[in-house]
């Protein structure tokens, strides 16, 4: 994330803390701009779909949210794995910071998927391969957060979460393919949200812009959350005491 010349300077919470603050602010600003642009494209600029009418516009939130939910899990597993392998404190904190945002996007993808399903297919929920996989992904996120919440010792929590996240990462393709197979076998549940309207260029642009907006938002919130985690975990140290005095 940082283009700084000396990476390792920022590998300790004390030095990363102020940088994280600045980055969070700027990414937050970028996120607002990108999301506003994306929403404008999605809800105003893109043409009405021939088959699905206006209701399809929810796709501009649904698809980027789904992309983010998967991407964030991978990033989370990456940071967690790094922390497990090299015993760095900051990596574990980043993984823990990402989890709630990832879960949020998963939930958003599910909710918007449901909102899309109702006008299009008549039901609030379809056992579509992607939606079902998203649901299981949500459980994976909850499992990670619940495990970390249940462990008092932060180091054990980081390491245990890392093992879980890595096992989850290995399982995600397996889960996706088995659910897809299950979906095609049971032809009764044939309504599929994968039948998205064929992409006009504007539609695709809208989704990409939204995706960037969500990505910047994720970075901003993850950094803010990481700052809170740093303050909490290092509260016995001097720099936190100085920071508290400084802002009081």
């Amino acid at each position, binding site marked *: 994330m940082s283009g700084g010349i000396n990476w390792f300077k920022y590998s300790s919470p004390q030095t990363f803390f102020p940088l994280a603050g600045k980055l969070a602010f700027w990414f937050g600003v970028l996120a607002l701009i990108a999301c506003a642009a994306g929403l404008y494209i999605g809800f105003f600029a893109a043409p009405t779909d021939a088959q699905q009418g206006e209701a399809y516009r929810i796709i501009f939130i649904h698809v980027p949210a789904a992309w983010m939910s998967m991407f964030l899990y991978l990033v989370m597993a990456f940071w967690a794995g790094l922390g497990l392998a090299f*015993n760095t404190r900051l990596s574990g904190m980043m993984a823990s910071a990402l989890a709630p945002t990832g879960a949020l996007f998963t939930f958003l993808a599910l909710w918007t998927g449901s909102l899309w399903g109702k006008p299009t297919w008549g039901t609030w929920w379809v056992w579509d391969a992607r939606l079902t996989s998203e649901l299981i992904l949500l459980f994976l996120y909850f499992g990670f957060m619940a495990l970390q919440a249940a462990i*008092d*010792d932060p180091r054990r929590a980081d390491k245990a979460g890392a093992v879980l996240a890595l096992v989850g990462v290995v399982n995600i393709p397996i889960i996706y393919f088995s659910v897809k197979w299950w979906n095609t076998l049971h032809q009764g549940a044939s309504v599929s949200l994968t039948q998205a309207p064929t992409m006009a260029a504007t539609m695709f642009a809208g989704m990409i812009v939204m995706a960037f907006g969500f990505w910047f938002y994720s970075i901003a919130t993850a950094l803010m959350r990481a700052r809170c985690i740093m303050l909490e975990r290092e509260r*016995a140290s001097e720099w936190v005491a100085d920071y508290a005095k400084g802002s009081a």
Partner: protein
Amino acid sequence: MEKTSGIPSLEAVDLQCTRGERTLFNGLGFTLRGGELLRIGGANGSGKTSLLRIACGLLEPTRGEVRWAGENIRRLQEEFWRRLVYVGHVNAVKDDLTALENLQVACTLAGLAAKRPQIGDALRVLGLAGCENLPARVLSQGQRRRVALARLALSEAVPLWVLDEPFAALDAAAVECVQDLIAGHVSRGAAVILTTHLEARIAATLRIDLEAS
């Protein structure tokens, strides 16, 4: 009368241990060679057990490392553990197994080839003759501790003993017996680390006293 050590040394380098919020100790180091006894003292909660567990490789120190023959024990793994006996606070004794079975399992897992008669002898040395075939459930606290310690009688070839409060819950006779085992082991040129509140009659070569914070 000490033999020259033929065993590698256990080196602790710049150990720091933080449990939750508290830093139990910082910058701790020692070198333990064959024929030496390290005694760790300190009040309750001062980190004695944590230090022992770090020395065994069960706990990872927040900083620093422990070396056996110059190599980090976390890299050596089984190679180091084959040369170690750890008797912790908790007796690793299963209630549903008999004393004999418990000891048999402990030896096999540690890679010690011990036959039934030898195991019976070990239990007898610790004063448990007649209790061999009783499930550990019916034994008293002291007897269970002795089952756990009986392993020492079979571990003469193991170069490093790490004992956490070995004399706890023992009566005077058993304490004498265990002290004999420890003294014998040290005089054979092996190394022992122990924590205890008792004033043991074996002279400690090294002492580390951890302060309670």
